[in-house]
């Protein structure tokens, strides 16, 4: 009798206060975007944890594969010169 009409999965992003970006908080099931928003409010902001919510259909997310993590992110690995700490600056030089 309970037909398998499982509601789709949504990923929930919460902006905890103005000035911060939305951060992934978790996921939930809801029949549509509007209900996802309402459920997200009740589930992830019961204690004023947010001032703004995004709900995204989980199926719409494309993620990089964990298997290719080394090769995929490798290009950044040998470029320490992209970090300020790479550079030697004489003692006493200020504002740099």
């Amino acid at each position, binding site marked *: *009798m*309970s*037909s*398998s*009409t*499982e*509601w789709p*999965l949504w*990923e929930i992003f919460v*902006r905890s206060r103005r000035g*911060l*970006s*939305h*951060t*992934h908080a*978790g*996921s*939930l*099931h809801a*029949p*549509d*975007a*509007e*209900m996802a928003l309402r459920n997200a409010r*009740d*589930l992830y902001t*019961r*204690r004023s944890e947010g001032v*703004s919510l*995004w709900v995204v259909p*989980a*199926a719409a*997310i494309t*993620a*990089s*594969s*964990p*298997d290719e*993590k*080394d090769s995929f*992110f490798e290009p*950044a*690995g040998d470029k320490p010169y*992209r*970090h300020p700490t790479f550079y030697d600056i004489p003692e006493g030089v200020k504002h740099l």
Partner: protein
Amino acid sequence: MATRRTIESNEPNDRSGGSLRSRGTEMATAAAQKAAETEPGGAGSTAARAAEQQAAFDEAVAADERIEPRDWMPDAYRTSLIRQIAQHAHSEIIGMQPEANWITRAPSLRRKAILMAKAQDEAGHGLYLYSAAETLGVSRDELLDKLHSGRQKYSSIFNYPTLTWADVGAIGWLVDGAAITNQVPLCRCSYGPYARAMIRVCKEESFHQRQGYESLLALSRGTQAQHEMAQDAVNRWWWPSLMMFGPPDEESSHSEQSMTWKIKRHSNDELRQRFVDICVPQAESLGLTLPDPDLKWNEARGHHDFGPIDWTEFWDVLKGNGPCNDQRITQRRRAHEEGAWVREAAAAYATKQAGAPRADTAATAHGEATA
């Protein structure tokens, strides 16, 4: 391997090289799950590949890194997590029943509002945990079905009745207290989504415990009859609360492997001892006693000794013979069945809306700013 350490990073301004990856791996989509499983691989290299994956997993666990949904993990690790998280989720939602029993009869509007907020939190905890379980590739329907058919369990503590209002206080203090003792170490569990769910849960639990303690304190300091009611509730909930930590270490079937996998961080007996040591002074401040004549401070051990636990009772309740097993599961099934039309109507409405032209705000997205 400097890039390894950023897996758990949620810092918005993390400046280290590889931090982008942590965002992507948070996502726990069923589609992603499938993609990972259907990875192509030559037949010859399969064994070498398996060994490599196992080694990477062992290394990550040993280094206290988190395993994320799309990482390779041993089947037994996955199964064990599903069992534990599902049982945990079921406990949260079944756990609403004994307390909900008193919502309509709470002695004041203040207590009623508090109790409703607590019950709503427990529903939320259930949902956090079901989501965490789903990242392992089981569906919500499947989990609920296993609960309803008795193929997955929930904590036996909820098979005891709430006979008086004081039981609500005793549950908050002792049952939520024991749950917190269990859950705090789970915040460092090796499986990322479970650990993150537990962090949210633990933040919310401390209100549960404090409201229970406050409520019991009011009764304990009230009339003689109120004091006796509080004492009676503590007498009935104390031993079942100690059983919440599970069987003694030498009889606990899952413990050792769970510790190796860093799903669990402390043994059942260790956590039980910690809980007893915490409760003894708290009971004193309440002006109530704990129903154990053998309970006393052991200077040499630096812990309280306590009397033997009636494990026959524990196994009996677990088998289904507790005072409320039938009532709890029957009520859960009924709620699910009676809610079927709501779920179906909402799904039908969503389908209908999806066909109609959209007039909502999402149609006017500006880059980052639907906000």
